[in-house]
């Protein structure tokens, strides 16, 4: 199998990368009609598989689960998840031949063996659905010509997909149709109905392409989302210890700091996150982030280049073939970092204090979000995609660190994201060594201690203008506006 993206001519590559449109709610007027009475068989019963299935069934659709025989025989967790929730469970042979839609909700790594196994069993003209395009785009999976191939990707963890549905809402969802596999032209109708079935249409649906989803998703997750937060955690913690700050305090400031500062990001973008700082601190954070952007830009470019030209997926797949040697080693190394081993101390840190004493963390988030966004858009990914894969998802990942530090983050994200995160971290920690030498506790740990909190008017205006005029802020305010329209009173 060859990298699908690399087989396309440049003009087609660019056209596919640029696909991303925020759909109007009127486009979902048909509800789940296109899937009514059809047999939907889910493969995989992890967090996404189970929770999407629960939503689809509660929307009146016919859902069952196909598991591998050993998962059924050994009554594994996936089997328990499905049966305790009252779903029909069977083997591929039992269920796939009857399926009108097969929902492949297994981890990326299993896609090739899973799809290879189910494809011959699928009935003529059925639909194969993915929630991530890696298998099609990077691995070049060739799907039978008579099958329709779509993607429906809720942009939140499975538990949230369910929780929001139960509340009567949904989570933002990306849909796509693989144009090479849309023989009956029904791909879009099926994808829309599927998005309605999971509640996604209430929170906003982006119509994208397999290619744009993969190339932007990979970029976001390995740089700003996971890589930057992991690198930032390690560097900030070690610096604070070096400067004699209480280890428990340092651990808490970082573990819960990302969540707190990116909450401000979620509500009002980078601008609002920096507006939470005092004027002198804001200028400080701005200057630090400019420096960080200058140092890290080549790294972001390299990640994006490797993702676009397929180097990243090739190298990662070599590691898959090598029994995940690198991944497992890096995972073990992460568990041994001082930040990871130091429990958060039993100290009270007020919401504002996370900003005041975490100026460097704010600068890192700003630098990471803007760099990822700039790099993605420079590579031909359009602003809407780039926004979702950078700024929008940062708070979601920050929440996982608040729960159980880097371990939880890396356990929650996909193996693909985890692999990319470690790659980034290994390059970024040494890259920032020089920068970190000059860092003192005024920007991480203690906050500025100024007699005079005055600032130069001209400088403040420059900083505010620069913040507000960044392109991620323009697209962000539009998309958050859409969200707010629908989620009016949240």
């Amino acid at each position, binding site marked *: 199998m060859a990298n699908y993206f690399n087989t396309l001519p440049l003009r087609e590559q660019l056209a596919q990368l640029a696909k991303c449109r925020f759909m109007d709610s009127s486009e979902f007027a048909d509800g789940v009609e296109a899937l009514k009475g059809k047999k939907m068989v889910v493969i995989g019963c992890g967090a996404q598989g189970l929770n999407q299935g629960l939503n689809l069934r509660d929307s009146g659709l016919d859902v069952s689960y196909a598991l591998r025989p050993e998962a059924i025989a050994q009554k594994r967790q996936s089997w328990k998840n499905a049966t305790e929730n009252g779903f029909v469970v069977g083997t591929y042979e039992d269920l796939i031949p009857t399926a009108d839609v097969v929902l492949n909700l297994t981890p990326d790594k299993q896609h090739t063996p899973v799809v290879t196994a189910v494809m011959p069993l699928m009935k003529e003209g059925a639909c194969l659905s993915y929630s991530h395009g890696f298998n099609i785009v990077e691995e070049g999976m060739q799907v039978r010509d008579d099958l329709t191939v779509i993607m429906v990707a809720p942009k939140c963890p499975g538990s949230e997909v369910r929780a929001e549905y139960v*509340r009567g809402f949904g989570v933002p969802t990306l849909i796509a149709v693989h144009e090479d596999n849309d023989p009956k032209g029904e791909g879009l109708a099926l994808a829309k109905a599927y998005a309605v079935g999971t509640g996604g249409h209430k929170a906003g649906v982006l119509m994208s392409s397999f290619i744009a989803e993969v190339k932007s998703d990979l970029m976001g997750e390995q740089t700003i989302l996971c890589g930057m937060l992991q690198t930032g955690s390690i560097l900030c913690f070690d610096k604070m210890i070096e400067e004699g700050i209480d280890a428990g305090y340092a651990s808490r400031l970082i573990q819960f700091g990302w969540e707190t500062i990116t909450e401000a990001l979620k509500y009002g973008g980078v601008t609002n996150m920096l507006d939470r700082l005092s004027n002198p601190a804001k200028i400080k954070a701005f200057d630090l982030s400019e420096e960080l952007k200058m140092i890290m830009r080549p790294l972001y470019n390299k990640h994006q280049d490797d993702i676009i030209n397929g180097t990243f997926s090739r190298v990662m797949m070599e590691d898959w073939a090598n029994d995940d040697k690198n991944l497992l080693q890096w995972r073990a190394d992460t568990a041994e970092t001082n930040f990871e081993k130091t429990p958060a101390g039993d100290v009270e840190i007020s919401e504002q204090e996370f900003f005041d004493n975490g100026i460097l963390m704010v600068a890192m988030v700003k630098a990471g979000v803007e760099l990822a966004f700039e790099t993605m858009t420079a590579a031909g990914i359009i602003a809407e995609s780039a926004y979702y894969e950078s700024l929008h998802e940062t708070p979601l990942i920050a929440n996982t660190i608040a729960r159980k530090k880097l371990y939880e983050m890396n356990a929650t994200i996909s193996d693909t994201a985890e692999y990319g995160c470690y790659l980034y971290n290994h390059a970024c920690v040494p890259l920032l060594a020089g920068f970190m030498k000059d860092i003192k506790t005024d920007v991480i740990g203690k906050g500025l201690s100024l007699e005079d909190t005055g600032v130069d008017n001209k400088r403040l205006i420059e900083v505010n203008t620069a913040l507000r005029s960044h392109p991620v802020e323009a697209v962000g305010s539009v998309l958050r506006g859409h969200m707010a329209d629908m989620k009016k009173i949240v």
Partner: protein
Amino acid sequence: MDSIRLDNILLNKVTVNFDDRFTLSEIDWTIESNQHWVITGTNGAGKSALAAVLAGVGEIENGTITGLPKNVGLVSFEAQAELIAKELKKDDADIMDVISLGTPVHEMIFENCQDPELAHALVEKFGLSTLLDRAFRKLSTGETRKVMLIRALSSKPDLLILDEPFDGLDVDTLAMLQAHLVSIIDTTPMILVLNRFDEMPEFITHVAYVDKGELALTVDKKDESAFNELYQLLHLKTTDLQVPEADPANTLPVLDPSQPLVRLKQATIKYGDTIIVDKLDWTIERGQHWQLSGPNGSGKTGVLSLITGDHPQCYTNDIFVFGFQRGNGESIWQIKQFIGYVSTSLQWEYRVSTSCKNVIISGFYDSIGMYTKSSDNQKKIADQWLALLGMKDRADQPFNKLSYGDQRLLLIARAMVKHPPLLILDEPCLGLDDMNRQLVLALIEKICEGKEETTVLYVNHHAEDQIKGIESYLGLKKNN
């Protein structure tokens, strides 16, 4: 000035019978000598009876009262009526063929007077000077009330009990009386019976709330939140406001009247090998109000969630709800539109930061939080509910900043706002203190008044929280 030097008055499990007309039961109450109380409650709750007990009225059947002073001044409609009846009797008893003039007002005022100077001053202030020679029974109701007040105030009572003293007084007299009461707060403990909170004088220190012949609550006025809740409770109990109408735009599919609302056949819930509910048959007919009870772990909430569609095993059971045989392509939203639901877990899940008004409106959409624009009519209905709850001023406040009890009240309004065919109240009082329990029960009773289109399913394990009109009972047992 003399300061108060009385013993505390202690009522210990006192049950008092009033000529078999009314009973006060099991009153536990301590009135300290430096306190001034208001007794409040709805009409017929026993406010006046409780006040009268302190003046020695009624037959004590059980319990003890200690510390009651001898000289108690009592002004009440009952005492007034009694006095007038006595006067009229004098008339009847007159066997001589002369016209009885009855007792003149000055005699009524000064016969037992301890402080003639004060009495004279009050006669002046109350504008009774020209009436002193008239027969007491010839006075108007308002005038006899003034005479009663002067008698009580000038008798130098050790305890002054005034039952609705401000009723029917003109503005000037009212101000004068209130000023006089303020002047004696250091010497005379007072008990006032008041229907309306806004008449409560500043000097009151405590409030007693009477309900159905019981002293349901006592509140220290310094405890602001409890005081506000009591205010709200009284509002709910006494308001003339009715439960707001449903939204005519919010129409439900018509149900076949020959079908039950809910029918579970051999319903079973199990986790692994553990059976929680075993082969339960249950049919809920329209208009048949049910109470469902059982110990923790007996599957009450599980059974309910089979009905509401929140339990995943509703797809593996034989369940008929609102015209749908479950598992035939219906969505849970088609089921939920027929149900209003309140439970403690709903309150836990209702963590979105939204306004109180929106919480009520979200009941139209069966959602937690609001994700759709609401109509003007929905907003109007929500406002009516807020008025009913006495929470008009909190319409735009964030829900998650409210007290636990107020949140529960709003969630009950949310459940009821669309007038659902089935209202499920799953332990609606769980986790509430006495005051809030009273509030919630008052609201539920208000809702159940003449609302025939809604069938109520009430779940509890507190036998004392009964709701009028429920006649069908289902008890679940713990299976293991």
